[in-house]
């Protein structure tokens, strides 16, 4: 089942006839809209294993999805507003909450941006520690994503194995930072604490074992004919449309565009490390689900390189003044490659200890736009695989 690719993308979400808010207006889910005799409106979520913290309002004709209107915002917590009332240091625990299992990566652009605003030079060792933490966190994120992908497809083994194996890396992060998922480890000017004794050795051993483990997933999951039958040629996103929709991360690379921020705009020490960015050209759900898995092997490689090149001793943190502030009006936009794609942070400073405006440009929100487009014309049973293959984490999209 392939999607008809229109030459000119029309609005998909706007085709659902939802009345403008009025006094009698009900939430779109509670008001049943009668569109056609044949077409039925179906609400998936927010309490549904296949949607998570968001709702998809789908209209189906028989088994085929006619239109889909995502309804995010169930975890909208106003991070950006609250950031305007907190200084650059106390913002740190807040800004990692949108993706707690990828918390180093979501904090990364913010920390880089604040360093540029304040003009702080980071010690060399701290840069390597950050890269290791970020890559470990990327693997932790992808493993959790993979586990839920398995559950979505009814593949329970693929829930158990990744959640189990990701504990190996969580254990490493816990040794490093003292918390399982919410590390609050990066700070403008370096990292909070140095690595514990003989961390390098333990890290190398566990990462090697981890890599051996994830290679086994090929037999049970990626080469599994049932998975291939369910995901191949499902939700195809062509190269041209991927560019126009402005998607990012694995979704983009599955459509044949070689774009990885670590490679194109290297931050910290990524320019000294050898990174392959994996590109596939099919653009279907199978390619989108395979790229993160290959990314993890790449991450293991990067961790090994970083462990080798890291200075064995030295400072990891520059001492900051209390309440650091920038000089006058300034803006900065920094981006990093997170587990889901390019993650940007736009900070407007007006010379106070608090940011004047802070905007997180999150990959989940950018990928969401592809969902109504991809689901159009798919079977309803393919909805979970297409939805989760977009690498979408609702808490992040809502912020």
């Amino acid at each position: 089942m392939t999607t008809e690719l229109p030459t000119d993308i029309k609005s998909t979400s706007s085709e659902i006839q939802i009345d403008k808010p009025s006094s009698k207006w009900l939430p779109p889910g509670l008001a049943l809209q009668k569109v056609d005799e044949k077409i039925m409106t179906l609400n998936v979520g927010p309490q549904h294993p296949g949607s998570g913290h968001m709702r998809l309002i789908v209209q189906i004709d028989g088994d085929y999805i006619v239109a889909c209107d995502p309804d995010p915002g169930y975890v909208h917590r106003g991070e950006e507003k609250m950031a305007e009332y907190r200084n650059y240091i106390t913002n740190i625990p807040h800004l990692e909450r949108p993706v707690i299992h990828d918390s180093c990566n979501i904090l990364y652009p913010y920390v880089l941006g604040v360093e540029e605003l304040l003009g702080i030079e980071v010690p060399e060792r701290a840069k390597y520690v950050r890269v290791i933490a970020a890559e470990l966190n990327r693997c932790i994120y992808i493993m959790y994503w993979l586990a839920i992908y398995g559950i979505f497809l009814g593949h329970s083994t693929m829930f158990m194995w990744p959640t189990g194996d990701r504990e190996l890396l969580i254990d490493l992060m816990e040794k490093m930072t003292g918390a399982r998922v919410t590390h609050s480890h990066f700070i403008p000017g370096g990292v909070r604490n140095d690595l514990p004794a003989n961390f390098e050795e333990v890290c190398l051993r566990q990462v090697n074992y981890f890599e051996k483990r994830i290679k086994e997933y090929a037999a049970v999951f990626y080469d599994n004919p049932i998975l291939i039958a369910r995901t191949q040629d499902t939700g195809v996103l062509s190269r041209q449309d991927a560019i126009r929709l402005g998607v990012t991360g694995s979704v983009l690379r599955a459509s044949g565009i070689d774009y990885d921020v670590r490679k194109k705009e290297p931050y910290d020490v990524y320019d000294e490390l050898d990174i392959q960015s994996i590109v596939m050209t099919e653009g279907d759900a199978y390619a989108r689900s395979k790229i993160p898995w290959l990314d993890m092997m790449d991450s293991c490689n990067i961790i090994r390189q970083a462990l080798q090149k890291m200075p064995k001793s030295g400072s990891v943190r520059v001492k900051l003044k209390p309440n650091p502030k920038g000089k006058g009006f300034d803006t900065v936009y920094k981006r990093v490659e997170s587990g889901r794609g390019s993650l940007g942070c736009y900070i407007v400073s007006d010379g106070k200890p608090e940011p004047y405006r802070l905007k997180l440009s999150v990959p989940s929100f950018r990928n969401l736009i592809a969902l109504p487009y991809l689901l159009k014309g798919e079977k309803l049973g393919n909805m979970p695989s297409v939805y989760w293959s977009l690498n979408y984490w609702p808490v992040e999209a809502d912020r």
Partner: protein
Amino acid sequence: MLKDLLTPETANVFVGKLGDMLEKAIGKPLGYAINWGRIWSLWPVHIETACCSVEFGAASSPRYDVERFGIIEAFGSLRQCDLIVVQGTITRKMAPRLRLVYDQMPEPKYVIAMGACAITGGLYFDSYNVLPGIDGILPVDVYVPGCPPRPETLIQGCLLLQEKIKRMKARTIV
């Protein structure tokens, strides 16, 4: 003598006393048995409300394997569930939906507030869109602190809930 006692006036009293004795003899063990059944089949509703669901997933991973205790098994329909674990922040948009889910669950039902956001609002104490804790909308049985709580803390909370159910009267909740 028995005949004297069993006058029509006192018969009602005797039957009532007999009922009380039966209640004491059978009711307590029966209640214990009912509770015993309940504590080993605490199945949660599959509702993720925020980011604590990551550690909730980790609790059922092979490392912690919370199903050893007969609790928190990943399960389908909310009409057959008796535990709701509120996994983190409840926003103003989510709150009516959470209550809707809770109301659809059959009695008896238990609530675990997981994470600082569910207990008091946590980090989001001054956010414009977050409820300061879920006490206002659901009766909470056990509080599991942390942001997010470690799986061990969640398991400990679940064991506390089992302990609590064991001491509850089985028939107070019909």
